[in-house]
């Protein structure tokens, strides 16, 4: 058994050719990925008593404000869905994205001691931190269920498409997160850019209102934000197809996400080798 092991662990380190084993290594280090994700989750809910509550409170409070501002004061249309559900269905993927994006962006710096002391494919760190946001998502999903029961709102088969949109949000966050995380290692100012993007994005994306209020001629431009399709998709899935959702925005979004991920991974892989030297 020993010899078999040795055979599989022969490798060569060569200047500029670290790529060889990279994707294989990523698989080999999957246990580290699980354990880092588990650590982040454990720590998140250990440090504070209201840890779990936090995942509930944040989207709930924002939702209430949006309901009041957009639903009651501005009286924007909600396409026949109770406004709280209408907003919350959008708040879910948005909160997930914002948390995942910001955690991923700061993940490398937060793990500087690991990066400078041990080898593993660095991609594991931001990827693991996105998983943590997934746990928050599951918790706040429970609120949605409570809301649905409250409004006696029964979803149909459309809701089965929800995981797909979640996946889309996952890759949006990962792609953007990888890119910023790598930049953050070298230029710490990007730490300040992240909250700004999440803040701005919240108002640019159709979280508090419906995409239909965006004028026709700007809609294509609006779809360039990949989160538009994710949010509309969530609404569509939860409302049983009652809210607006079209193939154009979905296609644009998928293309944008693929582009974002490619650029994120490309930049991450390119700078990854020097992380230990500059962090």
């Amino acid at each position, binding site marked *: 058994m020993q010899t078999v092991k040795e055979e599989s662990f022969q490798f060569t380190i060569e200047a500029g050719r670290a790529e060889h084993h990279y994707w294989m290594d990523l698989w080999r280090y999957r246990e580290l990925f699980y*354990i880092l994700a588990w650590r982040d989750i454990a720590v998140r809910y250990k440090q504070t008593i209201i840890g779990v509550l936090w995942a509930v409170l944040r989207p709930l409070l924002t939702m209430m404000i949006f309901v009041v501002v957009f639903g009651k004061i501005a009286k924007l249309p909600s396409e026949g869905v109770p406004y709280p559900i209408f907003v919350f269905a959008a708040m879910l993927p948005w909160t997930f994205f914002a948390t995942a994006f910001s955690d991923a962006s700061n993940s490398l710096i937060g793990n500087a001691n690991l990066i400078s002391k041990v080898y593993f494919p660095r991609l594991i760190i931001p990827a693991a931190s996105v998983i943590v946001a997934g746990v928050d998502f599951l918790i706040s999903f429970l609120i949605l269920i409570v809301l649905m029961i409250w409004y006696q709102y029964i979803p149909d088969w459309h809701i089965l498409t929800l995981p797909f949109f979640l996946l889309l949000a996952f890759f949006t966050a990962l792609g953007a997160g990888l890119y910023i995380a790598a930049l953050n290692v070298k*230029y710490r100012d990007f730490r300040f850019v992240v909250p700004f993007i999440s803040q701005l994005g919240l108002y640019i994306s159709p979280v508090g209102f419906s995409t239909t209020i965006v004028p026709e001629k700007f809609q294509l431009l609006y779809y360039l934000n990949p989160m538009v399709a994710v949010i509309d998709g969530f609404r569509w899935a939860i409302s049983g197809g009652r809210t607006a959702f079209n193939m154009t925005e979905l296609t644009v979004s998928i293309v944008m996400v693929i582009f974002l991920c490619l650029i994120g991974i490309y930049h991450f892989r390119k700078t990854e080798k020097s992380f230990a030297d500059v962090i």
Partner: protein
Amino acid sequence: MRNIAIKVESLGKKYTIKHEKQESYKTFQDVLIGSGKKIITSLNPFSGHKEQDETTEEFWALKDVNFEINKGDKVGIIGRNGAGKSTLLKVLSRITEPTTGKIHINGRIASLLEVGTGFHPELTGRENIYLNGAILGMSRAEIKAKFDEIVAFAEVEKFLDTPVKRYSSGMYVRLAFSVAAHLEPEILVVDEVLAVGDVEFQKKCLGKMGEVSKEGRTILFVSHNMNAIEQLCNKSILLDKGQITSSSSDIRSIVKKYSIGGENGHLPTIWKNIDNQYSNPYFTPKQFWISDDNNDFLNNPLPNDKKKYINILFNVKELDKNLEVGVRLYSEEGELLLVTHQTDEKEANWPTINIGENLIRMEVPPRILNEYIYRIELVCSLYRKGWIIEPGKNDINIFLNIKGGASDSPYWVKRSSVFSPVIKWSQVEAEGKR
């Protein structure tokens, strides 16, 4: 190839040091424009980050390093700080990429550059064992199988479910080392981890390392502790300025070479702070040398009966009353023989230190040392605050090569002891005392 664990071919690692031109930013507007440009260039993933505001300097931490390590070899890597030891380990353990060259590794490799890497204070001892184990490359199944052993070795059974932030520092280090000690890779890379903990614990660690090495694993071991190297290793590599100056299985000879500075036969009695390599507002050494009574510079070899002074010329910009300047004497083998500070006597007798240039000196009493080569190292600290020039981590060394003048006695034969003072003997009236 079967028998080779690691083969390194013309390995090099270059770092680029950036010197930012401070004066290029004059106004806030300039700063804004400057940083704006920076952000724009850095946002572009295809740009090569060429900023013109900075001048860069290349520095080769490792250059043209070649060696082969056989399976089962225990190799000690020695060298002064900045010689490239840590960089070599980092490249070998794939933390950072080499700039040139190739490394073939044959076997599962694990590196231990620090004990307790990734320990999280909020997590319990149990959780940290799994976490740290995974980080060091153990699988869950492996950790599970060794869990009890790890806990027993660390002696923390009672506190397994307590967050490690509540551990005493001793418990913390024990647990961290215990996880590391139960790693079972074919090749183990260890960096100075033995420098932590108390003497008792260091002994335990050394014992464990010895055990591990008997199991036929390949070990690469970096340390400033020459004793540990001599005990554990069967081969040694001496690094200097990023290059291998010698490598051999005769460890004694390499340790000797390291201790006396490597330069064959040339033993400088003067050290100068060239290019302001060392600079600190509290203490900037300028010159460190051996002189005679009249302050005339002396060269090796020196007779034992001659009065010698060790002089320290230094600059002080900010006065701190905790400043402690010292000298450490080492044998050729690197063993510490004595430590002395300018503050060793009662306070009234301390040399005064003022802002500006200061010259203090210390007397080497005649006929105390033996006819050997000694290394003298300058150290400096702020008492109870921290090191300015830490022992073993600098290269402010001069050498004392004592030849002749050992005694005036016709019976004197060279002594084999470290010191060979001529001590006064006298005769006492036997009658009255009895």
